[in-house]
């Protein structure tokens, strides 16, 4: 998992339990108004039995609008606060307390929106109901990194590429099932957010243990990653199979004492060496641009595009 998180874009979300302490401290600095009075302990205040309809309303707000106001500064923060409003109003009756709670949630928040966030949001709804404000902050910060990794691995590495290849092949043969499969995939992940939310809600603070203890979830992620690796290994040659060079070169061969030249297709020579060498080289090149030269995805894309365009225009590929 730590290696997986070793990415610039995800850096803010990588929080180990030790870092959670620091983040909470930062949060305090950012929000000097934060009232230490009302909730300085975890066993403070009355437990609020949340009405089912209130919980449901929060669940739908989160499900439908979480990222509508996604921005570079605090990413999913505002969507999170908006979704939490029904809970805040049910738990805190005093206006000052409500303001404190809103401001407490208006801090940086970003995770996988369909797999990770429903769990985190569900768990924090349950904790907010117990007036465990401080703990809510650490849970958010502590869980959003790991769950971003797990969610993205499942959705982007295992699920989407396989489904996309099937759907695209169907669509290329003119079948409406192609877009339909994609459409149903979106519905599937959206509907899944409902049980995930309630799973998080029932687990409450227990969800943190589940994620951080290197337990079942860590093993599951590892398993999914291995599956993804095997599939990607097959995808590179199959998806990019059309990348072949038409270049031919003349070779002087001596056979039976006679010397004559023959034209050999470069591709035949390459195939004898390693099949699908050109796709592999391009993936390695792109990987080197991203990791070796630390270029952004957009720059890598532009360079790849130009290189490929020139090679194609020259008739070399």
């Amino acid at each position: 998992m730590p290696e997986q998180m070793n990415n610039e874009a995800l850096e803010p979300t990588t929080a180990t339990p030790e870092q959670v302490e620091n983040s909470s401290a930062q949060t305090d600095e950012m929000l000097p108004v934060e009232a230490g009075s009302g909730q300085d302990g975890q066993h403070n205040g009355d437990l609020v039995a949340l009405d089912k309809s209130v919980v449901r309303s929060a669940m739908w707000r989160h499900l439908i609008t979480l990222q509508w106001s996604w921005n570079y500064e605090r990413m999913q923060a505002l969507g999170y606060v908006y979704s939490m409003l029904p809970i805040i109003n049910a738990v805190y009756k005093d206006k000052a307390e409500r303001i404190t709670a809103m401001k407490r949630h208006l801090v940086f928040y970003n995770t996988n929106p369909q797999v990770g966030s429903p769990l985190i949001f569900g768990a924090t709804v349950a904790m907010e109901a117990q007036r465990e404000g401080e703990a809510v902050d650490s849970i958010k910060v502590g869980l959003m990194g790991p769950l971003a990794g797990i969610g993205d691995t499942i959705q982007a590495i295992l699920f989407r590429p396989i489904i996309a290849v099937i759907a695209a092949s169907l669509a290329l043969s003119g079948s409406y099932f192609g877009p339909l499969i994609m459409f149903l995939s979106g519905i599937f992940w959206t509907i899944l957010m409902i049980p995930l939310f309630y799973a998080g809600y029932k687990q409450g603070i227990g969800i943190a243990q589940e994620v951080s203890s290197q337990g079942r979830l860590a093993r599951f992620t590892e398993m999914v990653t291995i599956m993804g690796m095997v599939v990607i290994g097959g995808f590179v040659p199959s998806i990019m199979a059309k990348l072949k060079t038409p270049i031919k070169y003349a070779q002087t061969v001596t056979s039976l004492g006679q010397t004559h030249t023959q034209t050999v297709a470069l591709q035949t020579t390459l195939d004898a060496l390693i099949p699908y060498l050109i796709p592999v080289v391009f993936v390695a090149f792109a990987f080197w641009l991203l990791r070796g030269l630390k270029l952004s995805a957009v720059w890598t894309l532009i360079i790849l595009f130009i290189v490929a365009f020139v090679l194609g225009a020259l008739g070399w590929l």
Partner: protein
Amino acid sequence: MSYSVGISLLLAVWAYVGIVLQLGPGLWWTEALISGFVTGAVVGNIPLGLTIGASLTLISLGLWTYGGATIPDFQTGAIVGTAIGALGGGISVGLTIALPTALLMTQMDVLGRAVTTIFIHGADHYADEGNQRGLSVMHFLGQLPWGLSRGIPVFLALWLGAGPIESVLKTAPTWFSNGMITAGQVLPALGFALLLSMLPLRRLWPYLLVGFVLFAYLQVPIIGIAILAVAIGFVVNTLKPRSEGSEANA
């Protein structure tokens, strides 16, 4: 030939709705297959929408907005490519326009994500006052930069640009279209490289070779590889000794 204000506007709304509903609830309408198909239906050339959507989907394998990263916008690419290709140029013109559109739209994506920052500061202000209605309005307005950064380019490209773009592309030399075709074939490399850069490659690279050998030497179809991948994943998981932590958890 060009598109009427009505059709241009309709597809601009489709782009707007697609991206906003991708942000939440995440309906995947930004998938090139879906946006291309719907565009094909609107302009009356569904087969073209399917082909362009599928081609872009194959390029986009492995692309994912990890941690909010900007990736090529194949949603807008599919809409504009399908619509312009449907004017008569067909698949080659459609793809030739779809790729650069998807690439250029990365700039609009960055702009949209940046402009939305305004609303979080508005929300700070309303939170101070305890004004929940104001805070909610800020949240809902957040969709405007996102949706408009897609909708406006789609509208302009179809209403103003469709005719001129198409006539230029129709007379493009062969080397140009060859270059674009090759570029389309190479671009999946970006997706795979992005995927690999997210994975613990140093530890798990052998599994990559398994998949490669299965396809390149043994000609196993991709679904077969996926099935075997699931088996390998489970077997490895079973063989792995359980750590102390997981015991306590199980």
